[in-house]
């Protein structure tokens, strides 16, 4: 991929990132942080690619470690964010039985 294309993607993504988050209410700061955290877990894709390319045991070992860490980041991040957001309910919801789980 040529440098100009990469710089274009990068620059546009910076502006989108700024725009999307700049007006968020402080009510959701915690889930937002956790959700953004889960998104960078997509480094899992990169970890799988380098594991595929590995030629020595050292490379393979390090990339498998990267896969474990990235999976924890991605899956754990999305699960915990969902758990938090599940609890945010509007008014007029029928009274919940058994509390939150």
């Amino acid at each position, binding site marked *: 991929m040529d440098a100009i294309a990469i710089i274009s993607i990068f620059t546009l993504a910076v502006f989108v990132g700024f725009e999307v988050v700049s007006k968020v209410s402080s009510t959701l700061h915690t889930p937002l942080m956790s959700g953004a955290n889960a998104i960078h877990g997509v*480094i899992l894709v990169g970890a*799988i690619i380098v594991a595929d390319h590995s030629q020595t045991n050292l490379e393979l070992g390090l*990339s498998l470690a990267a896969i474990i860490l990235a999976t924890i980041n991605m899956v754990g991040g999305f699960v915990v964010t969902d758990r938090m957001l599940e609890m945010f309910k509007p008014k007029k919801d029928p009274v919940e039985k058994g509390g939150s789980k």
Partner: protein
Amino acid sequence: MSTNLYSLIGLAAGVAFILALKGLSHPKTARRGNLIGAAGATVATLSVFLYVTPPRDGSAAHSLPLNHLWLILGAIAVGLIVGVPAARKVEMTQMPQLVALFNGVGGGAAALVAIVEYLHLGSGATTAEVIFTVFTVIVGCVSFSGSIITFMKLQELMTTRPVVFPGGRFVIAGTLVAVLGSAVWVVNALGTSPLMVLAVLSLLFGVLFVLPVGGADVPIVISLLNAFTGLTVAASGYVLSSTLLIIAGTLVGASGTILTRLMAEAMGRSLFGTLFGAFTAKPQEVSGSAEERPVRSGSADDVAILLNYARRVVIVPGFGLAVAQAQHTVRELADLMISKGIDVAYGIHPVAGRMPGHMNVLLAEANVPYDQLAEMDEVNPTFGQTDVAIVIGANDVVNPAAQDPRFSKCVAFSYRKFHSHRYFIHDTHGSRSAEYQCRQSLSSDDFWNARK
């Protein structure tokens, strides 16, 4: 799978992440947004198994399946076994620690990916690739070790106070210089050992960088490290020529930077002051005038009578509420008041809890509907019409010292307004000194100490 299809799937996943962040900006759409993001990440991960990325050294891509397929799947299974139960079981009060930990492992993964790719490319790497690799290794390692320290601080495995040792700033500055020096060394010498030195120095710098940050400021650092990890993912996207990694990483980097700034603003602190405050901070003495104001103590029955005749009640919760596990009781009380036609709102300080927005999560866990959760700026102007304010486990946000920047760096509820309303109920589980400060803050004669 063709290269074009693979790239388009990557683009779709990138769009899913944008929609996820967009959705997360409102409680109504947040859950769906997060699920869209999760779906995007899942599809992107699956697509890697169906497309072999050609190696950068120009050799042709091998055919499917991927090399080491079973080891890769095994590693993912290990990650799932560790990550999912941790995410399912964590107490809501421990959320900040978990986010810090997840962020740290993400940064560690990015650094490892960069190291492996560097080992693999060897002397065939272009200068630009080496520079991006060096960036990823430095920032990924700082994010990893820094996040582990923030985790330990929040989990109280170590002191939550700023750790400042004599000459600390020189040690940190020296480490930073050493990190940058070894970065130049890696770019010029292109060896494995310089890279390892760089990684170790970066890990050390991450530890030193977070140690002087005090307990209350730790969440801001988590958010900053989150943005850092995003940028490392973007940089490794360059090395691996993956558009998806560039989009996802940059989004997190940019939104994380804004979020960090919003949080720092909500706490009334400059980002610079947060990060380097411990070096310049002077001991803060609250030397308020010892003017005694009358305080009345009452029982729960007295409070019940008081609330029964109120028209509008504002509940100001703090982390003490969550520690005492009293959210459900408070919600039941609020429901009872609402059923009697009393207007009830929760006035929530932006950094109530241990992380910006944390209190909202804790109250949502107790089934408080989100439209009762009012931000500080919304609720402050309404105190004139409020009959009773109930402050629970939140001494600091109503502390008079908080309104003076010299004494406290928190933005305070404007409690001059408290003078005009009729009753102010404050639980006394807090410390004596905090109670004393609150007494001073009230000119009203009707300060009640409610004991539950």
